[in-house]
């Protein structure tokens, strides 16, 4: 891929931070779904949901990234991603549009990020207004590697 190429991201917000996932990783976006809680599961596992007969593990992205739960209790959105044949759904505050971003605006993740963020973030894009943090979905759905987050 050369530097002039553009990458498409689905953008979403968690705690007012603009985040993005490459479009090719996303299967679909759904409104809030009923979730079956899994007692004793890791705190970032919000539960399981039924996507047309397939069981999807829902991940509470706020908890995963060590952010307080939302106070306003508004509905959350599901971003369904596929990983190794298994489906995960990321519970986020809101989903924005698809953004094309030039590869040249990519920068590595700032060294000052917290440990959890560093694990789950594969870099940032400098946009006209603010930063787009690129989420590494593979690390996000891997709760074993992370050390602390509640």
């Amino acid at each position, binding site marked *: 891929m050369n530097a002039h190429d553009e990458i498409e991201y689905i953008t979403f917000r968690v705690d007012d931070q603009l985040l993005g996932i490459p479009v090719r990783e996303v299967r679909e976006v759904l409104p809030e779904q009923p979730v*079956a809680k*899994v*007692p004793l599961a890791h705190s970032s596992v919000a539960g399981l949901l*039924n996507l047309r007969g397939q*069981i999807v593990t829902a*991940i509470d992205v706020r908890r995963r990234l060590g952010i307080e739960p939302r106070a306003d209790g508004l509905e959350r959105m599901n971003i369904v991603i596929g990983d190794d044949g298994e489906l995960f759904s990321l519970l986020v505050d809101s989903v924005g549009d698809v953004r094309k971003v030039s590869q040249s605006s990519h920068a590595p993740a700032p060294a000052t990020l917290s440990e959890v963020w560093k694990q789950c973030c594969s870099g940032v894009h400098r946009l006209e207004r603010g930063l787009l943090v690129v989420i590494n979905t593979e690390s996000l759905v891997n709760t074993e590697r992370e050390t602390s987050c509640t």
Partner: protein
Amino acid sequence: MDDLLKDFIIESTEFITGIDQSMVALEKNPTDKDGLNQIFRAIHSIKGACGVFGLSRMEKVAHAAEDVLAKMRDGALPVAPVTVGAVLRAVDIIKEILAGLEVENKEPEGDDSPTLTSLKELLQIASIGSAASASAPAPAPAPAPGADPKPRPQGSLAETSLRVGVEILDSLMNLVGELVLTRNQLTQIVHLDEGSRYQTPIQALNRITSDLQEAVMKTRMQPVGSSWAKLPRIVRDVSIATGKSVELVMSGAETEIDRQILQELQDPLTHCIRNAIDHGIEKPEVRSSAGKNPGGTVKLSAWQEGGHIIIEVRDDGAGVDFERVRRKVVERGLAGSMEAEKLGESELIRFLFEPGFSTAQKVTEVSGRGVGMDVVRSNVEKLGGTVELTSERGKGSVLQIHIPLTLAIVPALVVGVAGQAFAIPQIAITELVRVSDQNRERIEKLHGARVLRLREQLLPLVELRSTLEMKPPNGASNSSAETFIVVTQVGDRQVGLIVDEVFDTQEIVVKPMGRLVRDLSVYSGTTILGDGRVIMILDAAGVANRARALQDSEKSKSEKHSSARDSSVRASRMPLLLFRSGDGAPKAVPLALVSRLEEFPCERIERADGRFMVQYRDHLLPLVPAGEEHTLARSGTPCPVIVFSESAQSMGLWVREILDIVEGESAIERGSGKPGILGLTVVDGRVTEIIDTRYYLTQAHPDWFSGNRVSGRMPASSRKPRILFADGSPFFRELLRPDLEAQGYEVCVEDNARSALKRIDEEGAFDILIAGLDLEGLEDSDLPRRIRRDSPSLKAALIALTDAAGEASAASAREAALRAGFDHCLNKFDRERLMNAIQQAMGDAA
């Protein structure tokens, strides 16, 4: 992997499996030219393909085997164990290479020279032989062409069957599972809408879905015979190794069963067959002298019965030696000798499935290591099946494995805990108990409500809500009048799971757990209900283990609290039953001594001659008030009673209130010497009195501890038998010593192994050693062997005592004790078995 190579591996594996079977058949029927030709062709094609793929190691072996087979075909070499054996060894090497190829994509390294040499030697013999065979009698004439009545159907199968990858079948199965779920949802919607015009098509959909489900299920079915191919070879090898002559007869090989189940059954079944030959079939000379055919038969059959497949291994061997099992049961301390006498055959058979139990007199290479039958049972139970063994002395044994047809869809009970639904597979459930305020006599309202009195048993209960760390949803209260207890079978034990609601039973499609939740052992999978809800399937064993782990961790927490008090005392702990008696302060009694908890209405308690008793199961149960219960009791109130029993005698300790079962330190300090109080221990940070059960027992039956009940069995010896009793716990020393003395033994007490040895040096021989398995210094000392050496007149009995509770820890304690040189290992509080073991030792010596 290269597709071509993959095909080669699949094809060659099939060939090779066929050869294994055909070689053994050939050995039995050496004139079967067709069989020999078939084997020859199979090896030949493998050899040919080796060149294409550059597999030089396999080519060499196949080539040598082919040469020998050619000579056998030409009659230059006989079909005999030595030639067949050599070819089979070559087949083994080819198998090994194929397996390696599949994993690493290249030939594994290995030294084949012994096999190659033996094959070459055979060839040399053949060339010498052919020179000499001019004078030898001609081999038996080959059957005339066309004499074989069964023409082999060749090629016909290939036209009607296809090779399909297993992953495609698995995904088909998944899709059908989902279709079933969708159909269920649809049916539910239409069900609410009477007279809907969708009714008819939905009914059709219903039927078609069921048919489709069945058809797809069938694609996953494999004939059981496909996993039997290896067995003739194993039987041949095992019978040669054990010097027996055994024929394996197989029937019902075409019976079909789910592929996954078949795979999981492979090892248990192989083990059962080995067992039948090694333990069941007798040596030819033994058989002949018993009037049997010198060659034994092992019959393996399979058939379908309802939704189950039954696989049976039947041998015509010696059958189970029940007397030997009985002796073994006593030796292992699994039952007292009197108790063991009463055990029936079916009960004795149960012990054969216990871990570490083997009646084989010696450990052979084939079996008898005591691992096996328990593994067979647990593997089969994991599949939702059962194992049954019946046996008749001298006639043989029959082992039956019952297995469900398929695993993917299981009936389950849907229950509610803290407002959330869970499924529990029916196969794990033995019964359902509803506990309401009206029948609360069935549940012991102990502090944490942890024991259910179910018929004669105290059933441990697990509160799902707390075990799963669930909080009730807002508003819902804990005060509902009803609780449900789902009684589940966890291995040998039963555990009651406390749930809030019971909904209904459903056929559920088990779906695997996602990888983030897969490690949670309390669940065995997930499923989607008819209404689309996702729910978790509970694993009863996992839940019970977690509940136990939670208890242990609480225990270690409280241990930390108390360790400051006296760090030198090793905090060994025992379960205590906590109760309140007349004067208010909680008291405790070791739970191991308690046989039952009862409640009697006050009116039923009778008073005669200053004593109390109650009609109880056609007997009069003497009651002793622990405090001033008889003056406090009001009519109409229930009177809680702790029952102690032994042999045929029972007594009830009448208390005011039963509080809880707790862990207390077994290190007990002597108390003030108050009658009825043995000492003090710390429970939850509070000093608690431990009652002296002996005091109350003798109040009810003055002769309880006197020797007269056993004196008849005491050897009429001129000197008192001497017992050396070493245990670290002062409480226990005090409990047992007077008891032993009352039975007429001379008892010396020590609290560690070193001083016990010193005692032997100073005072000479002892007849019996009773020692706590956790005795200080026991491991480094040679105490048991030392006693045995010094014991001149008697066969010394060496008895280890343990407070290990639970099947697994008791078994490992037993193992440790036997390793240390003890004869027996018994539970500390099992007085009856201990006395039996002592009596038996004295009896043996007399």
